[in-house]
């Protein structure tokens, strides 16, 4: 019985979050908005605070970064800058909970309670150069697989919508192995946005993308910022154009 309830709750939440994004995109009618707010208020508008507490990390004997502290809350977009090899990707992996910092920690707090690693990962959507999808599966199969892992039922309409959003409409049946690097980057966005996660972590967000793709990424980030349900984003980049998406969070100097 308990499972059944969770299922229903889960479905409604998914719908709500998707709906919220739709409002941003399409400015839908007020009545629907009110209904959705009513639904989402109970569960999905919780604010999230991400805190980095004195985070240090070393690779072998080399200190990548030392004693970093910062915090970011819902509604903000934080930009991490730093030269090559300064540890931007490593820091994002630590924030995502994929890597454990040597000392210090990263906490996700919502309503005064801290989230464990699994819960944290569940609300993260990530795009990074070292995150790849299955080359031996098609784009649609990749999305279906990861959606089902997250407990989201991926029907045809949802897949088409997800692929259209990243400009891959009509390419869903092709093997990812046959995609160009730009198309793979686009598919990663479709993956990251599955289930509309509250926290977006983007590492080199426009790598391999054409100008059209860059505009797409910017649109995605702006939409994410405009969400009213407590979303936040952290972007690691050096592109001047992308640093203007949010406020500086951390600047990393290259360690010795």
């Amino acid at each position: 019985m308990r499972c059944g309830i969770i299922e229903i709750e889960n479905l409604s939440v998914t719908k709500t979050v998707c709906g919220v994004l739709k409002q941003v995109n399409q400015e839908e009618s007020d009545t629907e908005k009110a209904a959705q707010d009513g639904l989402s208020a109970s569960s999905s508008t919780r604010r999230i605070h991400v805190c980095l507490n004195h985070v240090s990390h070393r690779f072998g004997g080399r200190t990548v970064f030392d004693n970093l502290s910062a915090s970011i809350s819902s509604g903000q977009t934080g930009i991490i800058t730093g030269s090559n090899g300064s540890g931007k990707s490593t820091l994002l992996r630590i924030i995502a909970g994929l890597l454990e910092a040597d000392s210090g920690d990263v906490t996700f707090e919502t309503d005064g309670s801290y989230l464990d690693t699994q819960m944290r990962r569940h609300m993260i959507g990530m795009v990074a150069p070292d995150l790849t999808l299955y080359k031996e599966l098609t784009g649609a199969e990749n999305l279906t697989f990861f959606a089902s892992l997250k407990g989201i039922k991926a029907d045809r309409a949802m897949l088409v919508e997800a692929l259209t959003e990243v400009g891959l409409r009509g390419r869903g049946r092709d093997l990812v192995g046959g995609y160009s690097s730009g198309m793979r980057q686009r598919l990663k966005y479709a993956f990251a946005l599955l289930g509309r996660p509250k926290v977006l972590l983007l590492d080199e967000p426009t790598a391999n993308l054409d100008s059209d793709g860059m505009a797409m990424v910017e649109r995605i980030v702006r939409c994410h910022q405009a969400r009213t349900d407590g979303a936040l984003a952290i972007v690691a980049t050096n592109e001047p154009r992308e640093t203007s998406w949010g406020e500086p969070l951390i600047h990393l100097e290259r360690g010795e």
Partner: protein
Amino acid sequence: MKASTGPNDASNWMAQARCLFLKDLRAELRTRVAINSVGLFAFSSLLLVALATRGLREVMTLRMLDLPIDIIRPADVTAAMFPAWSAASKMGLLWTLLCFAAFAGLAHSFVHEEEAGTVTALRLSMSPAGVYTGKLAFNLTLLFAVALLVTPFYMGLTGMQAGNWPVFLTLMLAGCIGLGSTATIVAALAAKARGSGALFGAIGLPIITVFLMLLLNAANTLYSDSTDAAAHTIKTVQDVGGLISFGILLISVSAFTFRFVWEE
């Protein structure tokens, strides 16, 4: 997303394991890397065995050459084909083959995730319990498939008898479970260690040797003629029980430690 969809729910990791299993199966049916390498390895070793054991058959073959065609009896042909070992040794050789074949191919499922870089996406989306269960199920399926293909062929080639069918089948099943569970957790370790190939064998084979020792002992019991039926049954149960408990223990320890391998 809402907390209730957290991956910690018991029903959730089972569902995730199922998804991963189906994904692996689909990818495998498309690329056939693992099944081809395991199958090909098994069959070519079988060929090697046939060649290497020529000495055991030579006498009969030479005698046959001198004889006029019409005098050759089916029994001679059979004897020429089948090496003159005990059934238990044939069983031992079969498992040596399966063992090396498993070690040739079962690492693929983990190593591939690691090398292709898909491991990051998986770690973001799945709980370790789900990954372990899914991969174990996939590896066991693969091993069952190979054993199912190779064993009848091997039996035909070497004349190995099943003896007592239920016991024989239980033995094969327990063997696959023990071998598959060992290979799965060792593959996970080797995949993380990157050096992979050589390391997989080096750290996996000592573990599996113990298991093979038990398995061959059970095979000895299976093929032994015993006058005391009750004692024979007790010995069989004891041996097969030892085999099955090895598999179960290994799976339990793996399930318990897998998250330390999976997380960095």
